[in-house]
């Protein structure tokens, strides 16, 4: 059973809870492939997507997950709401709560926004990405995808490559995979490796060739072009040459290594088109699994009456 009302990050949930979410997602995935993709479970419940940052797949994925479970969904993006009139986060969510929303799914550029929100309102809060802090449902869907392909997570070598500094996906993946008994390494330009990241329990590599050795799973992170004005590396061409995943590099990993990417991809920068479309790539399956995992999270968190 899930002990908490909210899902803020994977740092503070334990292995049995992760296991329960992943097991529940297995049953949810069957619904995603039905001709009629609808079960009545969350009928009459309202779920609000509150997005202060642009998003296609995460927002759509949560929306589909909620709709497959028969909940009503409201989408609010900051650019088209009272936020542009200067309304604070607190007032915005109090308004939503007064209208009777059961779950608020929030994405926000500031780390800690979801946690703050959870302290203000009685509704369940799900973090859909807060700054460079965490993106727990992405971490869960990555674990689900790997578990489905490899059977178990324990003992696997997971390598996360790219802009670790700005990546909430990396943080959720590190916490999640380590809790499930996998070994996690991170690799990227030294300017993109946050100080103290090794304290999480992850190993740190500056050479991609060394990091890839014997890897079971390779998670490539998106170079966030919008953040590159900071000059953390000299040029995209150099980044692609030193840290991009191409066919030759892929051969350093185990023969059956999985290639993953949270999307959206910059083809030709962090990942070559050839690798992204190869048989080892499970990037599209990650998207499908994302819906199943989010259905599981919604189901498990919304439950519980007053008993």
């Amino acid at each position: 059973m899930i002990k908490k009302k909210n899902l803020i990050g994977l740092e503070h949930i334990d292995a049995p809870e992760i296991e329960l979410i992943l097991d529940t997602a297995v049953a949810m995935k069957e619904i995603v492939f039905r001709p009629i993709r609808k079960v009545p479970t969350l009928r009459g419940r309202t779920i609000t997507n509150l997005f202060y940052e642009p998003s296609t797949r995460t927002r759509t994925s949560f929306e589909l997950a909620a709709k497959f479970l028969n909940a009503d969904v409201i989408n609010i993006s900051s650019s088209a709401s009272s936020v542009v009139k200067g309304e604070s986060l607190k007032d915005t969510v109090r308004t939503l709560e007064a209208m009777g929303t059961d779950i608020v799914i929030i994405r926000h550029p500031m780390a800690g926004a979801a946690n703050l929100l959870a302290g203000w309102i009685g509704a369940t809060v799900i973090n859909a990405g807060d700054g460079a802090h965490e993106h727990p449902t992405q971490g869960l869907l990555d674990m689900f995808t790997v578990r489905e392909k490899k059977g178990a997570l324990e003992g696997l070598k997971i390598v996360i490559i790219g802009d670790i500094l700005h990546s909430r996906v990396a943080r959720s993946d590190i916490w999640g995979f380590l809790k499930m008994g996998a070994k996690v390494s991170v690799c990227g330009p030294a300017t993109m490796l946050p100080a103290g990241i090794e304290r999480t329990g992850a190993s740190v590599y500056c050479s991609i060739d060394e990091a890839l050795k014997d890897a079971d799973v390779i998670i490539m992170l998106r170079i966030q072009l919008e953040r590159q004005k900071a000059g953390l590396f000299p040029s995209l061409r150099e980044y692609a040459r030193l840290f991009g995943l191409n066919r030759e590099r892929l051969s350093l990993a185990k023969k059956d290594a999985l290639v993953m990417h949270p999307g959206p991809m910059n083809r030709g920068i962090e990942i070559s088109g050839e690798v992204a479309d190869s048989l080892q790539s499970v990037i599209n399956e990650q998207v499908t699994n994302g819906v199943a995992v989010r259905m599981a999270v919604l189901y498990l968190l919304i439950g519980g009456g007053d008993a």
Partner: protein
Amino acid sequence: MSDKMRQKAQILDKEGIRRALVRIAHEIIERNKGTEKIALIGIQRRGVPLANRLSGYIREIENKAIPVGVLDITLYRDDLTTLAHQPILRRTEVPFPVKNQKIILVDDVIYTGRTIRAAMDAIMDLGRPKIIQLAVLIDRGHRELPIRADYVGKSTPTSGKEIVAVRLQETDGQEGVFILGEG
């Protein structure tokens, strides 16, 4: 189940369960005039081994393989908002189209009828069967919905305070049907 619950009576033993299922297998064949278009769907959890056994008995009698599906009705329950914790979701696996099939739902015990209501809704979401019939090992009465079983292993009057415990080798490592109650 509280610790105070003790075994008051045994209603079926291993042989009794076998005989009841063999009879139901015969009744299914007779009622449907053969096995054409018949498929069994077991309700998680103990309906599943019972459906598998019925399929085996029908095969022994008619020499025809009957497909068996597995149904979890959790997402269709009408009491989800009143439970303290969400029940564990188990897998649903119906590897055949239900459209125009004669679906026989299988469960261990019929009591209020609410599980069967949920199961029928779940099946309808998979397609439109020609007919749905219901087979149960035990009918213990106390229906809260206008639902009845087509095939019953044994009808046993019970009180609402008692528990009917069906134990099967596949799920419990033991065979038998017991009535548990206080004192």
